[in-house]
């Protein structure tokens, strides 16, 4: 559209050729010059030579005027046909020229009167020419106006185009921004996936991935391992009084020791699981560290002696404020480690108050830990100098448990170690107040205890026949009546059939067909319409499982369950009061 308009304008401009203007100006000039020549001739009276010269010039000028009229092709600007005024001018001019042709062809100078007439006629001609010039310029200005108008139109088109362009541009920019935001989003997505990836890589590097894998592996493996271990324990205990061969008790003792070792290994695993699950409860109290150290002395002095190591304790009467059981676990682990890893020298346990803290140290004169290894020793399964993975030295969970427990109790743990000099662990325990000391009588260790549940009815739900049978044997030792069922349905049938109400329910956590002990207990309680005491036994040590059972409010025991603990649990749930409990950890 714009192009068409511009072309139109260009053609119109072309039509108003400068040639036409040139002709008008030149023609006007030529006639004027002729007038001048005649005037000069009229003014040169008397001078013959000059007059002839002037006349000659006038003649030439007449020819020039003649020539200019002979090439008239004037058209008005923007028009292809001659204007009427032009036509009349040309007619006038040609009339003038033919009228005076003869006069100017002669070499004889005309008379003054004649020359005056020529002069008058040329004036008419110039006036006409002038008028035409005016018309021409009027036309030119009209044309200019028209051109301007066209230009105005052109501008309008230009404006519209500009506006269109602007709209298009804004649309484009908008699209661009949309694209940009999309790409930003994509970029962010990429960034987040990159972050996820780097997180995974981090986890891989730091071993957190391993940790996750390990958690699920542990949970699965320990369940499968605990099941037979659990049964083993039950059978071994049931065997106690039934081995009549002379070597029997000795062999049984060894079997018991091995079972105990197995149990303690599994308990370490369980501790880690429990710590990871965050279900270990901290029960801080003010207590005398001396008592704790004395207990440890009793426990470990003999073991150290066996290994040819000295064992020393040294303490002032410090009072600590923390969980005594957990602190005991920490110290036992550290001392046990020290004894296991030392070949000579002695293991020293000391406690000294320093400001508002008690500094408890465990020092050995063992081989020490290379500096490069020091960062790793608190990792799980990390063992120094045990390439053949001697299981009697434990799983390597000790220090890992120590670290976790210290974190839990907010105890600062420091380690110094010099190769072939020894290692010292320092615990910075918050000091307690002597006035707040709780006087508690520690139960006598290793006390033998007999339970008697006087024929109370225990319902055992377990899908494993071996376990059911083992439980029956054990429970019958403490004078319990036992009802065995492999599932919740079987149990309910039995209850209905025999019209019995159990005093307590022991359920395995994992039952057949994806059922859980928790569900079984709930169903039986519903059937009986009574809140029968119950607890769940599980081999599953995964933190999630532990938490789930804890949330159900039901008691939980982990396999393998040693009879003593089982009896304790029974006692606490059945309200058996005749016994005192024994810590057997």
């Amino acid at each position: 559209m714009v192009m068409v308009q511009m072309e139109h304008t260009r053609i119109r401009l072309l039509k108003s050729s400068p040639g036409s203007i040139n002709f008008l100006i030149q023609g006007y000039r030529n006639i004027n010059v002729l007038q001048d020549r005649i005037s000069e001739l009229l003014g040169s009276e008397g001078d013959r030579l000059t007059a002839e010269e002037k006349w000659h010039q006038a003649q030439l000028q007449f020819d020039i005027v003649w020539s200019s009229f002979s090439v008239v092709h004037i058209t008005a600007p923007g028009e292809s046909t001659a204007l009427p005024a032009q036509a009349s001018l040309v007619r006038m001019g040609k009339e003038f020229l033919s009228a005076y042709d003869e006069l100017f062809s002669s070499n004889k100078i005309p008379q003054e009167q004649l020359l005056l007439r020529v002069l008058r006629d040329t004036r008419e001609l110039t006036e006409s020419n002038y008028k035409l010039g005016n018309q021409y310029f009027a036309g030119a200005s009209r044309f200019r106006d028209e051109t301007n108008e066209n230009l105005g139109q052109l501008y309008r088109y230009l404006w519209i185009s500009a506006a269109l362009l602007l709209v298009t541009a804004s649309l484009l920019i908008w699209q661009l921004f949309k694209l940009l935001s999309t790409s930003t989003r994509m970029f962010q997505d990429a960034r987040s996936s990159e972050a996820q990836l780097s997180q995974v890589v981090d986890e891989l590097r730091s071993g957190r991935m391993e940790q996750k894998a390990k958690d699920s592996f542990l949970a699965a493996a320990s369940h499968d391992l605990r099941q037979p271990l659990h049964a083993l324990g039950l059978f071994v205990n049931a065997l106690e009084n039934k081995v009549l061969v002379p070597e029997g008790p000795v062999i049984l003792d060894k079997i018991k020791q091995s079972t105990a070792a197995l149990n303690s290994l599994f308990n370490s695993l369980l501790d880690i699981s429990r710590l990871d699950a965050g279900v270990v409860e901290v029960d801080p109290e003010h207590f005398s560290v001396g008592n704790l150290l004395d207990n440890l002395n009793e426990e470990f002095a003999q073991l150290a002696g066996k290994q040819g190591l000295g064992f020393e304790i040294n303490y002032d009467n410090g009072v600590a404020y923390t969980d005594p059981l957990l602190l005991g676990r920490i110290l036992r682990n550290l001392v046990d480690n020290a004894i296991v890893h030392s070949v000579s020298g002695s293991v020293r346990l000391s406690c000294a108050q320093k400001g508002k803290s008690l500094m408890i140290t465990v020092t050995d004169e063992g081989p020490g830990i290379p500096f490069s290894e020091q960062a790793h020793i608190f990792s799980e399964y990390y063992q120094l100098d045990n390439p053949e993975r001697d299981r009697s030295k434990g799983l390597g969970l000790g220090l890992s448990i120590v670290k976790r427990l210290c974190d839990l109790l907010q105890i600062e743990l420091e380690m110094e170690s010099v190769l072939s000099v020894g290692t010292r662990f320092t615990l910075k325990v918050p000091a307690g107040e002597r006035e707040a000391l709780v006087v508690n009588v520690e139960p006598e260790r290793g006390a033998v205890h007999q339970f008697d549940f006087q024929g109370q009815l225990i319902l055992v739900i377990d899908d494993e026949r071996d376990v059911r049978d083992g439980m029956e044997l054990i429970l019958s030792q403490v004078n319990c009546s036992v009802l065995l069922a492999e599932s919740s349905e079987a149990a309910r049938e039995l209850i209905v059939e025999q019209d019995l109400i159990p005093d307590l329910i022991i359920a395995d956590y994992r039952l057949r067909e994806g059922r859980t002990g928790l569900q079984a207990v709930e169903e039986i309680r519903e059937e009986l319409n009574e809140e029968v005491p119950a607890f769940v036994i599980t081999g599953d040590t995964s933190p999630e499982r532990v938490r789930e059972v804890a949330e159900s409010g039901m008691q939980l025991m982990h396999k393998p369950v040693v009879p003593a603990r089982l009896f304790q649990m029974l006692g606490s749930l059945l309200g058996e009061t005749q016994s005192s409990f024994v810590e057997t950890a």
Partner: protein
Amino acid sequence: VLKHTFFIVCCGLLIAFSAMADDTLLPAPESNVLLTISGNITNRNIESDASMPKVELDMPMLESLGATRFNTTTPWTEGLVEFVGVRVSSLLDFVGARSAHLTLVGLDGYSIDIKTVDFERYPVVVAYKKNNRGMSVRDLGPLWFMFPFTEYPELLNETNKAGAVWQLTQLVVR
């Protein structure tokens, strides 16, 4: 150093001499002068002022420079017209013109500059014959600066139309 100076002086002399050698003296016209060429030219008529060189030509001189002829239509004539004239490039060679930038002046005082025409390429002429006849002043003669518009349509532009000066009397080389 002396050798150098001598060489430079020799060169200077050589250039000066060759310049002088270019300054050809042409014969003076014997009949009516039809065209006067002046300006940036090296040659001149005998008896003309060396400081303001000019070459005046009469009809025999123009005719002696060789005739170029072509047929063309023009905005000012009817139908195909045959023009005969001196090719402008020959004319410029004849006067020793140092440029092809010309100012043309007509009998009526009309003047125009021609700057961009390639006279070597186009046979532009100073015509002295139209349709094999000499031209009178009334017939836009006696000389007409003429372009071969028909053969070279690209020449037909407003500048050249204005440059086709009739009644040509003067040519100034710029």
